[in-house]
């Protein structure tokens, strides 16, 4: 069975155990197009920085290898510049990198992998784009299950069961997909991985990618999750797994290490009339860390115009403190009260106008009327009312 060239044994690493970092779903080149361009640039760069951070960590921890279980890239059509920067980010770690094509970056006829190869990769970087075992020194054998298209109905890890390796070698599976009957249903649509693959294939460890949160499937099967969060989903992203396996058959030791640059947070807030004080307090984040926060607040409730104005103020304040604040106020109903209107004017045609707008709040185009009232309220304040 042909083997890929392996990296040379590192100095000072004498024992039979194997240690590696398990990560996945870096999705380098992810655009974050939905966010303002200045934020998206920051978040795009953050993913490369985190990769660098991983490389540095690998060097510091003197691990045998870094296994990336799929989706190094966000898409097969990332640009050359992204590929080059990716290559540079790997440099701090001179040990073995095993990179597995995932559903975002499958090994198609033309892919980031074929292009990386054309750019000339260093020897320590192995693209596992064929289902062929990869020797990790003489201590372990890595069995990769690369994706050659975005969605595959077959379980590509099946071949692990029959892959022959020397008994003294630690068997490590590397795959990208959904563990059947384990992940939420929507995640299982394609690229299935059998739940008991580790047992059936006598794997000492099965390094998985695709699920963006850190997640243990079995004693030997783990999702590392993405090291840099990329969405508002509280499923423990932002870690890599530092894995140590003492000998074939030994239970692996898993140490999650937080590496994320930014934290994504989504909260729903009920806003009461007059109560806007806790807009930033409710985040419960030390002030120093606020600047690394991407926040999404979903506001709901019914408030008056003055509360609305105060809320705008508070949100403006919070926006200045965090990296990015997204507010969804679709659930927030602004109902002008008598006091709101009195504050603008108690008599005269303006008051008449306000009353007329208020009457429209039950009509077919209530939103425009509501907004008109809020604008008037703002105008009232701006013009020194």
């Amino acid at each position, binding site marked *: 069975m042909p083997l890929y060239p392996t990296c040379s044994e590192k100095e000072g690493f004498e024992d039979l155990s194997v240690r590696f970092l398990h990560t996945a779903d870096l999705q380098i*080149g992810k*655009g974050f197009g939905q966010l303002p361009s200045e934020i998206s640039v920051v978040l795009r760069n953050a993913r490369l920085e985190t990769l660098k951070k991983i490389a540095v960590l690998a060097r510091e921890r003197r691990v045998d290898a870094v296994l990336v279980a799929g989706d190094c890239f966000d898409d*097969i059509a990332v640009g*050359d510049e992204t590929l080059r920067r990716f290559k540079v980010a790997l440099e701090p770690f001179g040990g073995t990198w095993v990179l597995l094509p995932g559903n975002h970056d499958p090994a198609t006829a033309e892919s980031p992998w074929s292009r990386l190869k054309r750019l000339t990769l260093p020897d320590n970087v192995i693209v596992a784009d064929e289902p062929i075992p990869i020797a990790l020194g003489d201590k372990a054998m890595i069995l990769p299950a690369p994706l050659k298209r975005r969605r595959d109905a077959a379980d590509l890890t099946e071949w692990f069961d029959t892959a022959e390796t020397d008994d003294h070698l630690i068997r490590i599976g590397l795959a990208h997909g959904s563990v059947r009957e384990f992940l939420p249903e929507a995640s299982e649509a394609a690229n299935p991985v059998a739940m008991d693959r580790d047992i059936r294939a006598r794997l000492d460890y099965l390094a998985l990618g695709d699920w963006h949160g850190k997640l243990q499937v079995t004693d030997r099967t783990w999702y590392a999750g993405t090291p840099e969060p990329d969405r508002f989903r509280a499923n423990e992203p932002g870690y890599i797994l530092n894995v140590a396996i003492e000998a074939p058959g030994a239970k692996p030791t898993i140490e999650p290490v937080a590496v994320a640059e930014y934290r994504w947070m989504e909260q729903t807030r009920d806003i009461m009339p007059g109560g806007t004080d806790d807009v930033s307090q409710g985040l419960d984040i030390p002030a120093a860390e606020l600047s690394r926060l991407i926040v999404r607040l979903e506001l709901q409730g019914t408030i008056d115009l003055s509360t609305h104005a105060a809320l705008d103020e508070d949100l403006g304040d919070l926006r200045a403190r965090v990296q990015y604040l997204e507010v969804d106020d679709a659930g927030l109903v602004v109902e002008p009260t008598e006091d709101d209107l009195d504050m603008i004017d108690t008599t*005269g045609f303006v008051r008449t106008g306000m009353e007329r707008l208020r009457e*429209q709040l039950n009509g077919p185009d209530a939103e425009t009327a509501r907004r*008109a009232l809020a604008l008037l309220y703002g105008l009232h304040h701006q013009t020194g009312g």
Partner: protein
Amino acid sequence: MLFRRIAIRNFRKHLSPVVIDELGEGVTVIAGDNEEGKSTLLDAIRTGLFERQNLGGKAADTMQPFGSTVRPEVRIDFEVDGSLYSITKGFIQKASARLTTPAGTFEGAAAEERLAELLTFRLSQRGESKPDDRGILGLFWLEQGRVLDGLGLGETGRSTLRGSLEDEVGNVLGGTRGRKLLEAARAQRDALLTSTGRPRGDLSAANDEAEKATARALELEAERAEYDQEIDHLTQVRRDLAQISHDRVLEKAEEALSKAESEARSIELLIQRHEAAEQAVALTKAQLDNAADHSDRRQALIQAVEGRERDLIDKRDAHTRLSDEAGPIADRQQAAEIEMMAKTEARETAETRVVVAQGRSRIESLDKQIAELHRKISEIEKLASQRKADQDRIAQIAIDQRGYEKLQTLESDIRAAKAALGAVATRVRFAPIGGQRVKRNGVELTTGETVQVTDRSHFELDGFGEIDIEPGTSELADRRARLKKAEDALDKGLTAVGMADIAAAKIQLEQRTSLDAQVKEAKRLIDALAPEGAEALATVLGEQKAERSRLSDTTSALMLADTADPETESRVLTAAKDAEKEARTALDLAQKEHQEHVIQLTVAVTALEAAAEAVTTAKADLQKARDYASDTELTTKLESAKDALTKAQNTHAESTKRLNAANPEEVELRRERAQSTLATVDAERRQLREEQIGLQSRLTALGKNGISELLEEARGRETRTLARRDRLQRDAAAWNRLVSTLVDAERDAKEAFLEPVLKRVDPFLRLLFPDARVTLNEETLEITGVVRGGREEPYPLLSIGTREQLSILVRLAFAVYLREKGFPAAVILDDALVYADDDRFERMQLALRKAAETVQVLILTCRPRDWREFGAPIRRLGDGKTKKFEPLQ
């Protein structure tokens, strides 16, 4: 407010007192000539009300009569809400102010302040009062010329009026703050929308940006799709190349071609042999055809001779047959000609018989007519003769109708004369006894009868004797003479006509009448028998006799006896004509048959000659051919050619069989297929390789820039720009809604605010401008214009007269309104209506009268005659000079 009395002393022009008192409600006209001090009076009222007692300087100096140093004084008595007030002010020297009110008397500054409060004006802080300070009283103080500048409400007046309006309708206007908000909102809206509601500024830019972003995203999506397709394509190309290599398609095709080519070479030899056999068959076939051709031609010549001979016989037979037919055909023609002649003759005879029959028939008819004519002529002659006799007899009768009537008249005269005589005659009646007779002048009288005695008469009475009676009346003689004359005239008349008496004359007259009738009847009968006269009858008779004689000669000449009637003879003629026609047809047919036969015979002769010629020619041709080659030689040649062909055909059949067994077509097909496969596979492989290279380089180029990153960025940008556009659109809609709502509210507010005042203005306006509506500025309450026929005309553009009148009308309305609201209002006009024409002037007077129902109106004028018909009391300024000033004590 009601001015009751105005008194001044030592005031400018008026050194001596002027007092206008007993001023009443409604209108009072104060008349004064020019220079008489009307305006001075007005100034005095103004000074007395509004100026401080301690007013100094130039303003105070002007109060002094020219060249004097006195104490100008003003006293005004007035009522407010039914209570009497009086203010007296003295200026310059011993300046003082004193106000008496129902609540007590006030002096000095207190009096002035109290007055200002009462009449809602503002005391000037320094110096002379300004028009603005004078409050609503100033508003209704209409001085010459000033009215044109609009209302000039002043702050105090405006505030009073606005206060009153706000009391009534509430604070509907938003004031400066409201307008500021509206303007700010409008600015915001206008930053996003044009006046027609089209996007502009940020909104327009956001629209463009969103559009561009969408277009860019679409473009990149298309690029991305192309990229994916190219990858799929590349995958396919590689798979195909691998397949070609794996299946050894090219090698297999080469082998198949080699085998097919070897087989094709052996078949080539078979084909050459087969072609040689084919040529041999063709050659021998040609030789056979040649021999057969010669033989056929010989046979044709022989058959030609035989044919010509048969034809000659046929032609001869035909000629003989035609010659035989000639006799009977000529006979038939002759018989038809004879028949034709017979029929023609019969027809001619029938025609003659018709002529004769018709002539005889005519003669018979003429005979009858002639006899009738004779009868008529004889009758006429008889009638004429009778008529002549009657006429002769008439000639012999002397009496006629007139003569007779004349006799009757004479007879009537006699009767009249007799009656006259009788009337004077002596009447005698005899009554003898026992049948004894009486005779008069010898003539016996009928007894018992009365006898008239007109002359001397002699009576003999039987048994008695005689009596002579002589009537003695003197008239008797005349009447007797008249009778005699009448009798003589009758006798004479009778004699003239030869009649004995009138009865005979009557008989004669009747005879005459009867004869006249006979003569007339004879004339009528003659006319009936000969309407055109007897001569005409004679002429006709002559003509008919001549015709008869002619016809008789003609028919006799034809010498035909026993003809039937013309109709019968005509029918015979028709039958004869039909028979003749039939005979003609038969003759025509016979002639035609004869002519045709002649032609046929001629043709048959010619054909017979030609057939004989043809036989001769054919025989000559045959002999000439036989001289060249005999019939036997030709037969031998033909047989040997047939044998040669049979041999060649056998050889060809053999080669065909061999060739078919080798199936060259299949071999060729296989070879072609192998060649084609090889070429196709080779081309395909080359093409796939080229495609692979092309795809690879395209993908490299496409992938360089990172389509996915660009696309995600573009999609993000599209989402963001669309969101921004939507937000701005919502904002624009909201600003628009806000502005339109506020504008509507403001408009409604203005209308509501001014409504109470405009309601009062309208009745005044209608008096002068029936279809107009005045517009006011809701802030300044100044007139802004007039709306007429839906069009607004700005106040400054109106004519001077209209401006003056409008200004006065609106003031009057304001005065009425404020008076109704309990404010002290009175209107003073100082020669104000200078620009009104007669019609307008009169209407303005109506308006003043209307206003005077609510407020007091004082009119100062130098033209009292203009107001004479107005019906208001006219007070002359001069009259006021006789009264005392009477300062307040």
